[in-house]
C-alpha cells in the first residue's frame, strides 16, 4: 500500500508499557516487551487548529472527532456515534441525586451498541492497510457491529463467538452475512484462538492486530459526553468494564480535551462497573493491588463476561489516577436495574447497562459518588438483543376475548397487583 498523504496528526505507535515507538502499521504487540501499542498524536500542532468550532462544524457522526482519530480515509460509520446524552431527571429523583446523565449507545447505529465506534475506526483502518478480510473475537455486540460495517465497506468478514450467546446476538450477526464460527468455551477461549488465527491467516482481526486503532474509536464516547454537556466534563463517570477498552479511553478523551483547552479540568473521576460473576478488575480495585487475577465468568451479563481483561491493568490505574472506585452487581441487581432504567427513562438496555446502573446506584448509596455532583452513566448496549434475561421477570399478561365484560373483569381483578408491579415505588418519582 502506498502511503496516503493526509492532514493526520498521528505521530505513530507507542508502547504503553516500555515507551518503544514504531510506525503506524498493523501491529498490536510491542516487539520489545509484549505490551500494547497506543496511537500517539501531535497535540502541539493540534492546539488552536482542533477547536470547539472545528469539531462542531464536522459531520453529525463520530467522524466529527476525526482529527483525534488515527484514520485518514473513513469508509464506514458515517451515521454512527452522536447518540443521545440524556438528562435523566426521573431516575435522578428516584436515586435522590441532583444531576444525572445517561449516555445512551443502546441506539447507536447500525447495530445498537458502543461497538460501532471502535469498529468504524478499525474497519476504515483495515481498508487503508489493504486488508480484504476482517474478523473479531466477540461476546456478541462486536460481532454484530463488525459484520454490519464489513457489509457497508464491502469486505469479507469472519466472526468468532462463544457457543452460548443469546439468540439476538447470534442472529444479529448472521443477518449481515459474515462467516460465523461458534466456539466451545468462554470469551477468553475465543480470544486466545483469535490471536492465533490473526497470526496464521493474515486477516485484520479488529480487536487483535488492529487493536491500537480499534481502541481509539472508544474515545468518541467521551468526546460526545463532553461536547453534548456544552463542552464540560461530568464530575463522575460510571462505565462498564469487560476487556477494559472503553473506561480508560473515555478518560483519555477527557484528558485530550483538557490538553487542547476545549474543556475545563474539573478532575473527572472514573468508576468501573462489573458483574459480580465476573469482576476481576473490581476485585483488584478493592484489594488495592494492580494484579488482575483472571476469573471464569458466571453471569447473565454475557457481553461483559471477560475473565481475563487485556486492559484491566489500565482500568485499575485510570481508577486510581482519577480517584474513582469500582463496584460489582449480582444478576438479580442487574435485572432490577434494567427494569428501573426502562421504567424511569424509557431506555431498554442489555445486562451490561443494567450492571453499570446497578453499580452506579451502589456507588451513590455508599457515598462514593456525592448526590449533589454531576454523574454520567454509560449505557453501551440494547436490551432487544437479550430478551432472555428479562422474560421471566416481567408480568406476562393472560389472554382475553375481545369483549368488554372480560376487560372489565381483568381490570377489576388486577387493579391492585398492577399498581404494585408497574408503579409501586416509582409512583412518586
Amino acid at each position, binding site marked *: 500500500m502506498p502511503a496516503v498523504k493526509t492532514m493526520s496528526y498521528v505521530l505513530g505507535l507507542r508502547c504503553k508499557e516500555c515507551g518503544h515507538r514504531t510506525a503506524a502499521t498493523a501491529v498490536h504487540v510491542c*516487539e520489545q516487551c*509484549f505490551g500494547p501499542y497506543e496511537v500517539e498524536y501531535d497535540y502541539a500542532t493540534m492546539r488552536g487548529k482542533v477547536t470547539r468550532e472545528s469539531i462542531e462544524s464536522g459531520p453529525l457522526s463520530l467522524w466529527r472527532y476525526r482529527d483525534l482519530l488515527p484514520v485518514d480515509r473513513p469508509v464506514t460509520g458515517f451515521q454512527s456515534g452522536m447518540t443521545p446524552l440524556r438528562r435523566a431527571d426521573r431516575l435522578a429523583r428516584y436515586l435522590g441525586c441532583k444531576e444525572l446523565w445517561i449516555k445512551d449507545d443502546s441506539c447507536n447505529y447500525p447495530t445498537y451498541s458502543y461497538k460501532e465506534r471502535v469498529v468504524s475506526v478499525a474497519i476504515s483502518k483495515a481498508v487503508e492497510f489493504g486488508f480484504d478480510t476482517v474478523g473479531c473475537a*466477540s461476546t456478541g455486540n*462486536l460481532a454484530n457491529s463488525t459484520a454490519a460495517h464489513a457489509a457497508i465497506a464491502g469486505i469479507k468478514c469472519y466472526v468468532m463467538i462463544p457457543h452460548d450467546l443469546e439468540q439476538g446476538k447470534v442472529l444479529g450477526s448472521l443477518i449481515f452475512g459474515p462467516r460465523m464460527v461458534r466456539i466451545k468455551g468462554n470469551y*477468553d477461549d475465543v480470544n486466545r484462538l483469535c490471536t492465533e488465527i490473526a*497470526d496464521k491467516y493474515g486477516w485484520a482481526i479488529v480487536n487483535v492486530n488492529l*487493536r491500537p486503532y*480499534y481502541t481509539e474509536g472508544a474515545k468518541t464516547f467521551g468526546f460526545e459526553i463532553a461536547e453534548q454537556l456544552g463542552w464540560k466534563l461530568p464530575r463522575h463517570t460510571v462505565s462498564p468494564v469487560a476487556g477494559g477498552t472503553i473506561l480508560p479511553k473515555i478518560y483519555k478523551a477527557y484528558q485530550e480535551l483538557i490538553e487542547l483547552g476545549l474543556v475545563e479540568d474539573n478532575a473527572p473521576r472514573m468508576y468501573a462497573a462489573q458483574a459480580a460473576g465476573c469482576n476481576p478488575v473490581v476485585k483488584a480495585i478493592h484489594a488495592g493491588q494492580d494484579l488482575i*487475577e483472571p476469573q471464569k465468568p458466571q453471569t447473565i451479563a454475557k457481553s461483559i463476561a471477560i475473565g481475563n481483561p487485556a486492559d484491566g*491493568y489500565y482500568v485499575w490505574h485510570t481508577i486510581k489516577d482519577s480517584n474513582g472506585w469500582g463496584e460489582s452487581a449480582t444478576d438479580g441487581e442487574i435485572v432490577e436495574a434494567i427494569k428501573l432504567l426502562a421504567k424511569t427513562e424509557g431506555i431498554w438496555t442489555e445486562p451490561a447497562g443494567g450492571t453499570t446502573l446497578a453499580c452506579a446506584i451502589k456507588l451513590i448509596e455508599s457515598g462514593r459518588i456525592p448526590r449533589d455532583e454531576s454523574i454520567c452513566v454509560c449505557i453501551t448496549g440494547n436490551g432487544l438483543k437479550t430478551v432472555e434475561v428479562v422474560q421471566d421477570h416481567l408480568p406476562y399478561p393472560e389472554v382475553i376475548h375481545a369483549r368488554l365484560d372480560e376487560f372489565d373483569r381483568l381490570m377489576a381483578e388486577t387493579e391492585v397487583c398492577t399498581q404494585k408491579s408497574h408503579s409501586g415505588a416509582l409512583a412518586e418519582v
Partner: protein
Amino acid sequence: MSVKVRIPAPLRTFTNGQDVIDASGSTMGQLLEDLKSKAPGIETRLFKGQTGQLNRFVNIYVNQEDIRFLQNLDTPVKEGDEVSIVAAIAGG
C-alpha cells in the same frame, strides 16, 4: 519427552520464523528455560527483567487452560501437551 510450544508472530524473530518449537521439561518453568536455550533472547520478551516473573501481557496456556488457573510456572507438563504463548487482546 517433548512438548509443542506455539510461538506467536511477534516472537518468531527469535525462532527463525518457526511457529512451533519442541521443548522439554516437567514443569512450565523448566519448559520455558529450555525454550530460552532454543530461542535465545525470547526470555527478554517473556519475563520482566531478572525477576523470574512473566510480563503482564504474556498469557500462557497448557492444553487451552491459562496457567494462572493451574499452578503458574509450577504447572506440570507432560509429553503430548500443547502450550500456547499468547499476547493479551482487547475486549469484544
